C-alpha cells in the first residue's frame, strides 16, 4: 500500500434523513480500491457498516455568542479526525488514504466543512475532499420545501446521488431532478440504481475545469417557493483585489443566505483560470488551474445560489463595484 498523502482528503457524505446515505456508503466501501478508507459516522443505523476503520463521532457544536464562523467548531469531529491521524502515525490503524464523514441527516454541512478547512491543527494534515449528497427521488422535493438543511446539503454538493428512483414514478424522478438542478445546476448527478464509480466519487473535491459552464436553472423549477434562486454570470477578466473585497464584504453580510458561490475567473494579469468555491461564509483556497482549454471560452463564469436573496441585487452590486460592465453580463439565472 502506498504512503499516506501529505494532506489526507476528507469526503463528506451528507443527505437528509432516510435518503440512503448509509446504504450508499456501504455499497461504495465494498469496492476493494477503497479499502484504505477511514469512516466517521454520527450514528450507527440499522444497516450495519462492516468496515474495519469505523468510528463514531458525537455531535458537539460550539457556537459562541459572536456567531463568528471560525467559532462554529464541531469539537468531536475535529477530535475524532485528530485521533485517527494520530493512530495512523503510530501504526495502530491501517494507513488509510482518505476519511469519509457521514453526517447526520439533519445537519447543515457547513460546520463540518468549516472544521476541516479552518481548524488550526487539522488544516495542516487534511483537506476537504468531495461533498456527496444523497437525495430521495420520492421525498426530496418535499424535504427541500420543509427542511432548510436539505437545501443546504444539495446546494453545496460536488456530487449528487439520486436514490430510490426505483420506487419513484418517472414524473416524480423528473420533478426531483428539476428541483435539484434549481439548487445545484452543475454538479454531476448520479442515480443510485446505476453503476457508480466508487473511487471517483470518494476522491478529491472536483476542481472546476476550464470547461466549466454556467448551467441555467431549468425554467419553472421552483420547488422551494421563491426562496432559493440561482444566478449565473459570464463576464470578462476581473480585478482580483476588487473581487476579494467585494466577495468578502458580501459574505460577511449575507453569507447565511448564500448557499454556494462557484466560479471560474479570468483574473486580470494572470494566465490560466482561477477556480473559486464558497459555501455560505466560507471560501476555499482559490485554485489556479494551469491553462484554459485550447480554443475554449476564456471569460469568467460565476454561479451564486441564494436563499431569500434576490440574484439581481448581486448582479447590480457587482456592476457598481466595477466587476461587471455597465451593460448587463450574460445573466442566465432567474
Amino acid at each position, binding site marked *: 500500500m502506498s504512503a499516506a498523502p501529505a494532506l489526507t482528503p476528507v469526503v463528506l457524505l451528507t443527505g437528509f434523513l432516510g435518503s440512503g446515505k448509509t446504504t450508499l456508503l456501504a455499497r461504495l466501501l465494498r469496492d476493494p480500491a477503497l479499502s484504505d478508507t477511514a469512516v466517521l459516522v454520527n450514528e450507527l443505523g440499522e444497516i450495519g457498516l462492516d468496515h474495519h476503520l469505523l468510528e463514531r463521532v458525537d455531535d458537539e457544536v460550539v457556537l459562541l455568542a459572536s456567531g463568528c464562523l471560525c*467559532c462554529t467548531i464541531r469539537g468531536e469531529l475535529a477530535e475524532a479526525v485528530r485521533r485517527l491521524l494520530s493512530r495512523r502515525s503510530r501504526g495502530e490503524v491501517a494507513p488509510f488514504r482518505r476519511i469519509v464523514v457521514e453526517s447526520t441527516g439533519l445537519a447543515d454541512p457547513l460546520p463540518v466543512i468549516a472544521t476541516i478547512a479552518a481548524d488550526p491543527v487539522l488544516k495542516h494534515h487534511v483537506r476537504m475532499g468531495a461533498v456527496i449528497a444523497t437525495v430521495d427521488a420520492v421525498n426530496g422535493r418535499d424535504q427541500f420545501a420543509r427542511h432548510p438543511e436539505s437545501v443546504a446539503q444539495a446546494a453545496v454538493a460536488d456530487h449528487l446521488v439520486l436514490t430510490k428512483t426505483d420506487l419513484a414514478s418517472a414524473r416524480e424522478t423528473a420533478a426531483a431532478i428539476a428541483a435539484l438542478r434549481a439548487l445545484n445546476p452543475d454538479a454531476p448527478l448520479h442515480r443510485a440504481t446505476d453503476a457508480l464509480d466508487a473511487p471517483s466519487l470518494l476522491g478529491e473535491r472536483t476542481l472546476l475545469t476550464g470547461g466549466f459552464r454556467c448551467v441555467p436553472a431549468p425554467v419553472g423549477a421552483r420547488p422551494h417557493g421563491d426562496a432559493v434562486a440561482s444566478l449565473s454570470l459570464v463576464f470578462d477578466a476581473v480585478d482580483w483585489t476588487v473581487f*476579494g473585497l467585494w466577495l468578502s*464584504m458580501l459574505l460577511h453580510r449575507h453569507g447565511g443566505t448564500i448557499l454556494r458561490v462557484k466560479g471560474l475567473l479570468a483574473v486580470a494579469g494572470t494566465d490560466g483560470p482561477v477556480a473559486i468555491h464558497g459555501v455560505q461564509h466560507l471560501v476555499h483556497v482559490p485554485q489556479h488551474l494551469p491553462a484554459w482549454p485550447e480554443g475554449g471560452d476564456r471569460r469568467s463564469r460565476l454561479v451564486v445560489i441564494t436563499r431569500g436573496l434576490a440574484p439581481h441585487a448581486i448582479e447590480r452590486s457587482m456592476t457598481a463595484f466595477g466587476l461587471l460592465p455597465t451593460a448587463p453580463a450574460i445573466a442566465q439565472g432567474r
Partner: protein
Amino acid sequence: MCALCGVLGGAEHWADAHARPGAFTRNTGPAERRRERARRVAEANRILAHVGLVLSDWRGTTFRLSTRTGKTELVGSLAHLWAAAERLTGRPLDPLDPVLLERMERPA
C-alpha cells in the same frame, strides 16, 4: 488569534492564501505581498470613503481602520475588516445596499 472568539491561529483568509501548489494567491513573495496590500488599501478606501472610514497599512503587518474623528481599530485581514467597519460606524455595511451602490456609481 481571532479577537472575536479567542481561537488561536484563526483561519487563513482565502484572499490571503499562502503560496502552495495549486493555490492562487498574490502572497508569493515580499514584493508581491506589499504591492497587493497597497492595492487593497486603495481599493478598500474607494468603498469605505462612502461611509466615512479610511484604511491604511500599519507596518505591513496589519491594517488601521479609522473614522474621520480618529476612532480607530486594527484589523488583521479581510476576515475582520467589515465587522470592524460596522462597529466603527455603528451600522451594517451592505454591498447590496442601493444607497451605497448609487454613491459608488456617481462620478468622482
